[in-house]
């Protein structure tokens, strides 16, 4: 088992953003995480990656407890993520941004090696020609691709994607999904979790789905089974199911 959460809770003042969530992700899995807006998906990522310490519960990575480990040490162990709202290092170039991932992530590369890796991953996500541009000048879509390249360059064991595909057109979505699948095979980034509102992307990508609702885990299981479950349909009633 790669990642294990035991009754993890995170509060913001009176609001319980993540409410006693237990979750296990096995090595090699492709997991989808869905849920209405504000159901706690991003907060769950923040607690896993170490942005926030949980108010309760325990977190294990490869069997080792990481509940109180600072974010940068978790990254070194092999956790990487993208941000829902991209967070580029604005005045650095695109290439330097990705190189920073390679240097300080699990890849732990030296400067020269990291810059070479950056070129390779930029090529892979399709924005190689932008590599000398200042990151703050990119379009939102380009920023997302850069974030993906940066996360991949870290060579994580667990990759957490947060609404990476939102705002992309169908061709891009398919291209990125193919890319992620390819990377998973070739680069040995074996385990990927994907938070997404786009149900067709989830159905295409995920083998297993976790549904979040008001901070709690509502249900989890094989993708199609879960998405058609009455409870899930009920939660999404009123919310437009974004299929298609």
């Amino acid at each position, binding site marked *: 088992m790669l990642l294990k959460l035991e009754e993890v809770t995170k509060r913001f003042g009176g609001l319980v953003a993540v409410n006693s969530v237990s979750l296990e992700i096995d090595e090699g899995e492709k997991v989808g995480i869905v849920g209405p807006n504000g159901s706690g998906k991003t907060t769950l990522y923040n607690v896993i990656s170490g942005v926030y310490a949980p108010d309760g519960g325990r977190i294990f990575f490869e069997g080792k407890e990481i509940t109180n480990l600072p974010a940068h040490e978790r990254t070194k162990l092999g956790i990487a993520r993208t941000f829902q709202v991209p*967070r580029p290092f604005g005045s650095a170039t695109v290439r330097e941004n990705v190189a920073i991932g390679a*240097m300080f992530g699990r890849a732990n590369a*030296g400067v020269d090696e990291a810059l070479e890796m950056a070129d390779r991953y930029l090529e892979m996500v399709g924005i190689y020609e932008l590599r000398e541009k200042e990151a703050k000048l990119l379009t939102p879509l380009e920023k997302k691709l850069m974030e993906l390249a940066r996360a991949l360059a870290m060579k994580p064991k667990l990759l957490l994607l947060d609404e990476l595909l939102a705002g992309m057109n169908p061709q891009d979505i398919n291209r990125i999904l193919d890319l992620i699948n390819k990377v998973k095979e070739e680069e040995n980034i074996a385990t990927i979790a994907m938070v997404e509102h786009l149900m067709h992307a989830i159905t295409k990508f995920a083998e297993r789905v976790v549904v979040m609702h008001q901070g709690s885990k509502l249900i989890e299981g094989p993708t199609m089974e879960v998405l058609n479950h009455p409870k899930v349909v009920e939660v999404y009633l009123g919310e437009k199911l974004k299929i298609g």
Partner: protein
Amino acid sequence: MRNYTPLVTLLLIYAVMIAIGQGIQGMWQPIMLVIFYIAVGQALNIFLGMTGYVNFGYVALLGVGAYGMAVALGYYTDLGLIPALTLGFILAILLAFIVSMVVGGIALRLRGAYFAIATIGVNEGIKYLILGGKIWGGSSGIVLSGILRKAYGAETMRFLSTVFADAGLIVVAILSGVITMYILNSRLGYGLIALREDEDAAKVMGINVRRYKQIAFVISCILAGLIGATAWTLKLTYVFPQDVFAINYTVEAIVIVMLGGAGTLLGPVVGGLIYALLKYYLTIAFPGMQLLILAPLLIIVILLFPEGVVGYLAKAARGTRFEKFVR
């Protein structure tokens, strides 16, 4: 790839400056003033420029460095010249190291503006510790000229306060530049740039931000201490708390860094050149009004040219054959 070529530009500028200073009558003094301000900017830049954190207590580090050298030469004169000088450099480094570890250890737990607030008291604090505690002569400071003349002779003392002090400062200035270049090309530099742009994201990228900030802070402070030891104690042969803890040096260093371009190698050089020459001639033209002119200048730079001269040039040079030489 790693690029050390801007060092060529840097060394060329120093060579030209030294040549002008030695070759043209009356130019050595303004040139040394320029080099002093370049050094002051370069040392501050390693922290302020690379992390985006403001250290309002900067001048205190020049001050403790100056005291380190003064204490060695003034109180351990009997050790002999070379050992006393060596001890002076060691004490300057050690005091700067201790102060920066303590201040950094406490204040660098704080983010951005809170860090700046915490450092507001550092300069005053150390100054009034010396004054109030009557340490190292309290308000009467340490006056070395008599001691040095008596112990080592007038000739040696003159050599110390002219050639040796100037050479020492030039070495420290160039060393600061070389260290800056090294940092910019190293993992440390990439980590610092990342945390300057977005500290939380930097943490998630695996950067130990506390440690990196502390390293940059300590390096910056030690270089400042060495500047104080050479440019003040050795050159002037006296140290008074009112002089070495004068806040205007902090202002001047910040102006130089911002004017030249924060976080660049050549920024402090260009900023120091512009600033020192401006100051030199302004002082002659409008005595006592430097700060009055400088303060609005700083505001204008911040509002209109936040990237500074070199930041702007480096962008303009991108894609041309000069690109390699500007950073």
